[in-house]
C-alpha cells in the first residue's frame, strides 16, 4: 500500500546541484516570492479572544469562500497557497463542503483548544482516599464507568478514520476532529481512572453497545457518520452525563461529569450545525440520512437491552438495592430514557428534520413509553 515519491531525491542530480549551488553562492531562485497568492492583513477582532481562525476568514484564505465542490486542491497544500504542478494527490474522499461543514466549526475548535483539561490533575482524586462507597453503589458506579470507558474511544476512532479522507481545504473541520479525538481520549481516561479507583475495578463489557460502536464507525459517508455519532450517540451520552452528574455518589464524580459534559456539548453542537448545514445545502442527502437514522435509532433502541447498564443506572439512581431504592431508581431511569429520546427528536427538529417523528419507529417507542410512564404516575 506504500506510496513512492515521483522522484528519488537522492538520485535527482538537478535537485541536489541546485541546492548545492544555493548554499555555495547564496544565489537563490526566490520564485516562491512571486507566488500568486493574496496579501491580506488579519487583525484580532477581540483582543481577549486573541487571533482566531475567524479573524483569518479573509478572501482566498477564508472558510467562507470555500466552494461547495473543492476542485482546486487535492494536495497537502494549505488553503490559499500557490499549488505548483507536481504536488501529489492526497486522495481525499470528501471534497464537498456540505458533507463536512458546520456553521461555527472554527469556534468549536478554538473552544476545544482553550478548554483542554487534564484528568490527571484537574480531578481531586486524593479525595477518594477517604471514600468508602457501599458495595452496591461502588459496583454500580464501576459498571457504569466500564460502559463509558468502552464507548468513549469509538468517538476517537470514528472521526479519526475520516480525518485523512477530508480534503485539506477543510482545515477547520480537520482541526475540530483532531480536538474531538483528544477530548474523547480524555473521557476514556477519566472513566477508566474512576473505575480503577472504586475498589471494584472494571466490570462487565456491554456486547449490545459494542454493536452500536461498530455501527457508528462503519458509515458510508462523513455526514452519515456524523449524524450517528455526533447527533444520536453523543446526544444520548450528553443526556446520560447530565443524569449521571445528578446521581453521582461523590463530588469527585460530579466534577468528572461536569467537565466531560462541556466537551460533549461541543461535539453535539458541531453535529447539530453540520446536520443543519447538510440538509440545507445538499438536499439530495436527506433521504440517505433518514435511512441511516433508521439504523442508528434501531441500534440506539437496542441499548435498552443492555441490562448491565440499565441495572447499574437504577441502583445509582435509587441509592441502593432495597425495594424502595429500586422503585425510585426505576422512576428516575424511566425519566432518563424518555428524556434521552425526547431530546434526540428535539435536536432533529431544530436542525430541520421535523418529519423524522412520522417515520421513526423509535418515536413510536417513545410515545408508548411516555404513555406507560404517565399511566404509572411517573411525572416527566
Amino acid at each position, binding site marked *: *500500500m506504500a*506510496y513512492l515519491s515521483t*522522484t528519488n*531525491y*537522492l538520485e535527482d542530480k538537478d535537485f*541536489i546541484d541546485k*541546492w548545492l549551488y*544555493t*548554499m*555555495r553562492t*547564496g544565489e*537563490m*531562485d526566490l520564485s516562491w516570492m512571486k*507566488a500568486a*497568492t493574496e*496579501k*491580506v492583513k488579519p487583525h484580532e477582532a477581540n483582543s481577549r479572544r486573541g*487571533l482566531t481562525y475567524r479573524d483569518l476568514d479573509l478572501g482566498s*484564505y477564508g472558510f467562507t469562500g470555500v466552494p461547495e465542490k473543492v476542485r482546486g486542491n487535492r494536495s*497537502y497544500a*494549505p488553503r490559499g*497557497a500557490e499549488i*505548483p504542478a*507536481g*504536488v*501529489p494527490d*492526497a486522495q481525499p474522499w470528501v471534497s464537498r463542503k456540505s458533507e463536512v461543514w458546520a456553521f461555527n466549526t472554527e469556534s468549536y475548535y478554538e473552544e476545544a*483548544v*482553550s478548554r483542554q483539561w*487534564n484528568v490527571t490533575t484537574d*480531578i481531586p482524586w486524593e479525595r477518594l482516599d477517604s471514600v468508602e462507597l457501599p458495595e452496591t453503589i461502588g459496583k454500580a458506579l464501576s*459498571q457504569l464507568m*466500564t460502559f463509558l470507558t*468502552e464507548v468513549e*474511544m469509538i468517538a*476517537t476512532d*470514528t472521526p*479519526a478514520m475520516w*480525518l*485523512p479522507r477530508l480534503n485539506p481545504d477543510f*482545515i477547520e473541520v480537520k*482541526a475540530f476532529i483532531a*480536538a474531538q479525538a483528544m477530548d474523547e*481520549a480524555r473521557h476514556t481516561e477519566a472513566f477508566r481512572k474512576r473505575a480503577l479507583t472504586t475498589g471494584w*475495578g*472494571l466490570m*462487565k*463489557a456491554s*456486547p449490545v453497545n459494542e*454493536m452500536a460502536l*461498530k455501527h457508528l464507525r462503519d458509515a458510508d459517508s462523513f455526514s452519515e457518520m456524523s449524524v450517528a455519532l455526533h447527533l444520536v450517540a453523543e446526544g444520548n451520552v450528553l443526556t446520560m452525563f447530565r443524569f449521571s452528574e445528578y446521581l453521582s455518589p461523590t463530588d469527585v464524580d460530579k466534577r468528572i461529569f461536569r467537565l466531560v459534559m462541556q466537551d460533549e456539548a461541543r461535539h453535539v453542537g458541531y453535529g447539530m450545525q453540520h446536520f443543519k448545514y447538510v440538509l440545507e445545502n445538499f438536499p439530495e442527502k436527506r433521504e440517505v440520512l433518514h435511512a441511516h437514522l433508521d439504523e442508528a*435509532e434501531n441500534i440506539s*433502541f437496542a441499548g435498552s*437491552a443492555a*441490562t*448491565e447498564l440499565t441495572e*447499574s443506572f437504577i441502583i445509582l439512581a435509587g441509592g441502593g438495592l432495597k425495594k424502595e431504592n429500586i*422503585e425510585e431508581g426505576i422512576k428516575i431511569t*424511566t425519566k432518563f430514557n424518555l428524556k434521552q429520546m425526547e431530546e434526540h427528536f428535539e435536536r432533529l427538529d431544530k436542525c430541520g428534520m421535523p418529519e423524522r417523528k412520522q417515520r421513526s*419507529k423509535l418515536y413510536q417507542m417513545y410515545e408508548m413509553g411516555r404513555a406507560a410512564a404517565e399511566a404509572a404516575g411517573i411525572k416527566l
Partner: protein
Amino acid sequence: MAFYADKDYTTDQTVFEAVNQVMSGNLTLFWYDAKTEKVKGKPTDLRRGLTYKDLDLGSYGYSSIPENLRTSQSMVARGSEKWGNLPDMGYVVNRKSEIWADNVTYLYEEDKSRRWTPAVDVPWSDLDAHPIAAPIEAACSQLYTFLQECALVSMDFAARWVPLVNQDFIEQKSWMCAQMFNWARLNEAFRKRALCGGAGLGRASVSGEQGLKEWLWADSYPKGSLSINLSLGGIVLAICRHVAAFAPSKVDRVLMGYAMQDSARQTAYGSGQLRYYLTHRPAEMSAMQEYVDDSEHVMLALLGSPELIEPLIIISGGGLQKDQVQAGRAAVAKFLRLAISEYFERLEAAGLAASRTRSRIAPVVERISAAA
C-alpha cells in the same frame, strides 16, 4: 462499508420482555459479580495527580499487555470481563512491539500538562507594533506555509492509524489522539503566523509534499512512525529551534518555543517506538534498515526544498543583502549538519547501529553544508 444491527430491535419481543422485567424491578444483577480484579488505584505523588502509571496495576496495567493480542478485537476496556457476542473491529495493529514505546504514558501525561492556546498565548499584535522588513516577512510566510504541509501530514498520520490500533493499547491510542491534536494546534499556529504578517501564504513544495506522502503512506506503522515521528518530527524540531534562535520577531520566538516543546515529544515517541520495536523484534532489524535506506531520500526532499531552505537563509541572515545572505548560508549550513546528525543519533540510539556510516544521504548533506 456500513454495518447493520443483526435485527430490528424495535419489533423484537425478547428485548421488550427483558426491558420490562428490569423496569418492573426484577433485576438480574448478572454483572454484579464480574470476574475482574478488584483494585483501588491511588496517586503515588499528590502533586502529579493520578497518572496512567499509577494505574499500571495487575490485569489492568499496560505492563501486562502481551506481545500478541489474540483475544481482543472489540472495543472492550482492557481488564473488564468479556462475554457475549462482541464485534470484531478489524484492528490490524495487534502486536505490542509495533506500537508501544516505554515513554508513551509519560509523553501523554506531559502533553496534557503543557497545553497552550495559539489564539491567546502568542502576542500576535506585536507584529503590528513592530513590523518586519518585507523580504523577511515574505520568507516567514513561505516558511510557515511549508511547516503547515508538515503539520497536516503529521496530523493525518496519527489519524490514519489510530482506528487500526487494537483498543487494548489504550494509553498509546490516547497518545496518538494527543498527537493529532498537537499537530492541529501547530498547523493553526503556523497558519495564523503566515497570514498575520500581511504577506499571505507562499507556495506549496513539490519535493516536500512528494516526500511527505511517501512517509505518510508507509505500509506499516513502525515504518511510518519512524518516518513521521522520528524523522519529520526531528526536522520540524530542528527548524523550530533554529527559527527561535534567529527569530525576526517576538511572535516567532514565542510561537517557536511552543512548537519546539510539541515537536520534541513527537520525536521522543518516534525514537521510543523504534527502540521498542527493534528490541522486541530483532529479526526485523535488517528490514527496517532497508526501509531507512530506501526512504531517507525524503530527508533530502524536505531539507533541500527551495521553499524551506531559501526562506531559512533569509531569516537566519536577516535579509537579502549580500552579507546577510552570507551569514544566512553559514547558519543554515550549521542547521543542516545539526538536523542530520541528530537524525542519525536518534536512529543509532534506537538500535539502528552505524546508520550514519551506511547512509547515502550523509555525504550529500555534508558536501552541501561544507559548500557554504
